[in-house]
């Protein structure tokens, strides 16, 4: 086959020619994969071929090695690994050769393909000579080849994990990269490629950052690069600094003063992309210090892994004025532009983070700026002052802010109605929302909202909901937090007198023609949800009246036919909002017997609507309707059985939705709701549900976060159906057992430990449900063979000493359930277990009441089991 011609045809403007070419390529690939890849790599390496066919050849090669979807990627990796070794080495030789091509597009494409191959082979200990051959003569290479080599190193570091590369190879990579960045390198493109490569290579440099000399050298080169004449290099160098700030926070102390000077200069005078990175450096430091300080607060012993260097606190007197300065650089109409991001926005965001980091200390530094600018004729000054005020509301103590806020509140309310500038009104409404979010609620001692001003606040916010969409959206947000503050206010809420008016205004907002802008409609429904969630019994009848209203809205979305894809997307978004709203209402009304009873008159109709929404088939709505159905099942109880014949297929569809794992996870949760509602009436659907759940567990396509809830769901089902679970016992137990073995030992970072604990909790909840379900059944004997493993699992996680409180409570409960159900059959096993002694005693003396309660239950059950 003449590959060049086919590749040219594949880029033809003529659709049929293009299609034909794509067919040819596909056939070639299926019939002879090694031959196909070889001729592509040959095409890429051939200097006589046109640049566009070389690039396309490289792209197709790359796509034959990697894919976004996990399972597809896995397939491709396996296919490459099983390829003939000869063909592979020829392909790799072609790729390496292309790096020195004078055609930069070809070299650059090859570097990406090489990184993909490395990503597959290095973890398998294959292609060990790669890094050496890339670096062997990097100094003698012509500039374009050097650039391609450095790019390759950058991509390679992005592709592979640091633990598959030996330290001496890391050293070589870093040496080459940092030298390429330094001033001695005359070629700008090479310097840029090196700087970008360093960004990816930083994760490999743990050892080098622990070595003072090497770290000093790297830091010096990076800082110098922030001052080069080429703006792309300056930006890339600042990106490196941002990355260093989070990866090597604890190594920064010697450099922080220099970095401040560099960033201050960039913020003041450099081009915006560079200035944005400079601000991001400080935001990133804030992120680090907020995390560390949070850890301090939680851990009274104070021996946190990473010490806090209080960089922000030290930089405060210089940092705050620098950030306040940026606030005055707003763009016109930035609030109407969803994608906007500029120096004023970045500076304001950073100011908010600084406030969270240092707390009270920021207030005296910002107040003069507010006072000076808040009433100025220039809207930029008024907006900047308001934004500064809004930014510092989270972090400082309420005591420090309360006087300021009380003075500002009436000013803000007046500005929201009277300020001529929309941008100022937007920020004012946002600031009011922040006031209510952080300084209003049962936790705050001196209330800022009083019977005297409540009416005015509500009136102003409802009035603002008629303003431009962006202002109205912020007003909705403010109302959201106003309602939230009264969440646990008791039997009587100050919102009650305005409830009807608020609901009516929000519904009016959802019908505005421009409600699609600035996510106004979404904000209105979210606020409606919060108002309902935080309502009291006083307004229960009004919430009930809302049911047919929202039902009618949902009904109206089902009318449209022959919609364009755009209309369909809008329909599905609206359905999502309405299902979400109904979910909140169902949960609210279902929580008290009297309102639940009245609400139930709508249950049939609501369920009918949900089923019709499913019939429209849209994933996002699917999820919202599914969530709402879970709430409905809980409220309905055993009567939910009547909906099952029709609903079941959607339940199954949800469980099969691997791509949108959230949908799958939500559906798994709903299966639990249904099991509890239907109890043994779920039996007819169990075969289908259990089969799908077991399939999901064994799939490597499903996001791992869905697996723990699937195990919990086993427990829900077992508890609901009792000994009928026997049918699935063997399969469920074997899945549980292998997951239990995996989750006993954790090696990894905090995130993995957290996941492992979630997984353990799911496994343990399954065991609990199964034991309890089989209790009092003549089939308890069936569980006896599993007891040794389960006890071993309990002992194992106890020894591991890294379980959280939730797991501890569930685990000790399982011990009790095992003893209770198996009784004397497991008596001696239990007595031999560590869990029944040390672990139980530890739980019995726990401060956590839930753990203690479970432990007492376990103790009782064990004493009975071993008494006979």
């Amino acid at each position, binding site marked *: 086959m003449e590959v060049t011609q086919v590749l040219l045809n594949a880029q033809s403007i003529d659709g049929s020619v293009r299609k034909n070419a794509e067919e040819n390529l596909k056939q070639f690939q299926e019939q002879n994969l090694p031959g196909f890849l070889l001729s592509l790599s040959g095409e890429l390496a051939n200097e006589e071929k046109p640049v566009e066919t070389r690039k396309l050849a490289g792209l197709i090669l790359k796509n034959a090695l990697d894919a976004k979807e996990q399972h597809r990627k896995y397939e491709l990796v396996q296919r490459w690994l099983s390829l003939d070794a000869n063909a592979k080495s020829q392909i790799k030789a072609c790729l390496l050769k292309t790096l020195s091509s004078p055609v930069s597009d070809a070299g650059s494409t090859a570097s990406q393909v090489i990184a993909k191959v490395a990503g597959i082979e290095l973890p398998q200990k294959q292609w060990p000579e790669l890094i050496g051959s890339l670096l062997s003569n990097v100094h003698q290479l012509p500039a374009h080849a050097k650039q391609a080599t450095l*790019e390759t190193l950058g991509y390679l570091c*992005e592709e592979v994990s640091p633990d598959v590369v030996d330290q001496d190879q890391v050293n070589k990579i870093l040496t080459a990269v940092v030298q390429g960045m330094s001033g001695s390198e005359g070629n700008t493109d090479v310097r840029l490629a090196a700087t970008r*490569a360093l960004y*990816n290579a930083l994760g490999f440099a743990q050892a080098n950052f622990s070595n003072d000399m090497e770290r000093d050298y790297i830091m010096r080169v990076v800082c110098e690069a922030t001052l080069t004449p080429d703006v792309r290099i300056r*930006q*890339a160098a600042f*990106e490196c600094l*941002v990355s260093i700030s989070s990866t090597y926070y604890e190594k920064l102390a010697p450099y922080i003063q220099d970095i401040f000077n560099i960033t201050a200069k960039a913020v003041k005078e450099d081009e915006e*992309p560079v200035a944005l*990175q400079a601000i*991001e450096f400080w*935001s990133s430091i804030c992120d680090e210090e907020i995390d560390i300080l949070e850890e301090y607060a939680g851990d009274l012993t104070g021996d946190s892994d990473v010490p806090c260097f209080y960089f922000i606190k030290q930089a405060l007197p210089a940092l705050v004025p620098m950030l306040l300065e940026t606030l005055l650089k707003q763009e016109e109409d930035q609030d109407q532009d969803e994608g906007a*991001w500029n120096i004023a*926005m*970045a500076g*304001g*965001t950073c100011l908010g983070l600084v406030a969270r980091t240092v707390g009270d200390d920021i207030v005296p530094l910002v107040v003069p700026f507010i006072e000076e600018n808040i009433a100025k004729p220039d809207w930029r000054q008024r907006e900047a002052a308001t934004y500064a005020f809004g930014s510092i509301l989270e972090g400082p103590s309420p005591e420090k802010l309360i006087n300021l806020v009380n003075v500002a509140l009436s000013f803000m309310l007046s500005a929201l109605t009277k300020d001529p500038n929309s941008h100022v009104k937007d*920020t004012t409404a946002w600031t009011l929302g922040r006031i209510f979010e952080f300084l209003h609620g049962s936790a705050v001692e001196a209330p800022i909202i009083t019977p005297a001003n409540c009416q005015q606040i509500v009136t102003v916010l409802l009035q603002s909901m008629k303003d431009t969409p962006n202002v109205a959206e912020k007003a909705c*947000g403010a109302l*959201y937090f106003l309602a939230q503050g009264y969440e646990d206010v008791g039997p009587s809420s100050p919102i009650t007198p305005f409830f009807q008016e608020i609901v009516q205004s929000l519904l009016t907002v959802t019908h505005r023609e421009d409600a699609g802008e600035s996510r106004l409609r979404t904000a209105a429904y*979210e606020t409606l*949800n*919060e108002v309902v969630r935080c309502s009291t019994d006083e307004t229960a009848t009004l919430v009930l009246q809302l049911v047919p209203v929202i039902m009618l809205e949902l009904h109206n979305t089902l009318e449209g036919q022959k919609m364009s894809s755009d209309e369909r997307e809008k329909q599905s978004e609206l359905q999502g909002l309405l299902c*979400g709203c109904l*979910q909140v209402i169902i*949960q609210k009304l279902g929580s008290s017997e009297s309102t639940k009873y009245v609400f139930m008159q709508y249950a049939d109709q609501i369920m009918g609507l949900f089923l019709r929404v499913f019939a429209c088939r849209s994933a996002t709505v699917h999820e*919202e309707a599914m*969530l709402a159905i879970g709430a409905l099942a*809980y409220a309905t109880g055993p009567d939910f059985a009547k909906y099952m014949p029709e609903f079941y297929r959607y339940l199954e569809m949800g469980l099969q939705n691997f791509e949108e794992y*959230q949908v799958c996870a*939500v559906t798994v*949760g709903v299966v*639990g709701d249904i099991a*509890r509602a239907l109890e043994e009436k779920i039996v007819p659907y169990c075969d289908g549900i259990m089969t799908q759940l077991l399939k999901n567990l064994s799939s490597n396509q499903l996001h791992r976060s869905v697996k723990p809830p699937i195990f*919990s769901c086993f*427990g829900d089902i077992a*508890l609901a159906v009792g000994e009928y679970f026997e049918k699935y016992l063997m399969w469920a137990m074997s899945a549980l057992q292998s997951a239990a073995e995996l989750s006993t030992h954790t090696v990894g970072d905090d995130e993995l430990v957290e996941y492992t604990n979630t997984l353990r909790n799911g496994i343990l*909840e399954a065991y*609990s*449900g199964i034991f*309890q379900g089989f*209790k*009092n*059944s*003549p089939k*308890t004997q069936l569980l006896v063979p599993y007891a040794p493993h389960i006890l071993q699992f309990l002992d194992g996680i106890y020894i591991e000493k890294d379980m959280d409180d939730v797991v501890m409570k569930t685990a000790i*409960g399982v011990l009790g*359930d095992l003893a*209770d*159900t*198996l*009784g*004397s*059959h497991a008596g001696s096993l239990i007595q031999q277990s560590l869990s029944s002694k040390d672990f139980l005693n530890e739980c019995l003396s726990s401060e956590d009441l839930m753990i203690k309660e479970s432990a007492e*239950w376990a103790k*009782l059950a064990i004493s*009975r*089991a071993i*008494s*006979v």
Partner: protein
Amino acid sequence: MAPHDLRRPFKRAAISDQQKRRELSLLRQAQNRRDAQQQARCLASSILSLQSPVPESEPEPEQPDIDLETAIEAEQESGASSKDLDVRRASKLRGPEVRKWFARQLMLPEWMIDVPDRLSQDWYVLARPSGKRCFVVSSNGTTVSRLRNGSILHHFPSALPAGAKTRDGSGSAQSYCILDCIFHELDQTYYVIDVVCWNGYSLYDCTAEFRFYWLNSKLEESGACSPPSYYHKYRFSAVPVYNCDQNGLYTAYTGVVPYAKDGLLFYNKHAHYQTGNTPLVLVWKDENCSQYVIDTDSKGEIPSQQQVVLELQDNGKLATSDDPPVVFGCLDADMIQQSGLDSGNLLRFAISDGGLSFSDGKLEKADLNYLGKSNRARAFADSYSKILFQYTVRHSPLKIDDLLASINSPDDQENKSCDMEMAG
């Protein structure tokens, strides 16, 4: 390697409302799961605490004015609300509440006011022992009997599974028995008339046919029928159960048993154990098989007129304890006011000379004469079937011959006659 996007959320809440809804759902689900598991755990604890050796108040001495039947019905809850032994609900109860709950767990027969169809095919018959109706629960090495009002009758070791400390093996938390018994004072024996749980195996959802089969095979095997010993304080005995054909009915009616009879019990073979009133178990009696056929008054004498206890409802109507209640009459507002009565009061009436009149098998009119408020020991009004049975006993009783005749009636023989060839 393009520059990296560093946009941060601007003027936005950190968490979307959808995410919030998801998280709230998960919280609710976790809470529901905890509740469900907690209930399951409490169930085991409460079954056990039912026979904990905590001193219980002695059963109140039975009121002399109430015969055994009245005593049984006096306590009956309108059983409609609890169809099965709802142990989950019970697990939430404590102390005196446990007793109240327990009192509602027995299956209560209706009175036989007419003969059910297919008596010989679908029903069992047994001679009911006279004595104290009770639940016997064995668990964790001890046995407790509880009267219908929930108070403890005896606390003793027994040979029932898990009924005494000496027994080995199976006697653990999950193995327990619940038997429906009548304690017969004279020979100090528990006569078992039904079984609800055996050795941890629930028989609630099993048919009477299966329950009796189980009872007959297991009770003997357990040694509970042996004479009393140190580890087995009271003897248990199964009551002979017969198919309700002519022979069976006749044997139950006339046969010699070691106990004093108090009428006959009829069990529908297909019925599950159901708490409260049920028409699938019937009681019938006459002077030959019971000492107590006609209700007595507080002096132990038979009043000249039949007395009934009815509940005063909101609208002045007088109703039975059935669900739905049957209305026997109405009090006018003046009368209610003058007598200081409130809705919910249980009132005693005599049925005067006008008696009860029926139309199409339904009660049309009752000639009632107000006597006063009923004894405070009463918790519930009479049931319709009881009033009618007492009425017919006084006027035109359903006789044993009627029962025997119905078994022989062609109606009852229809299955057999199907096979007959037409000869006409």
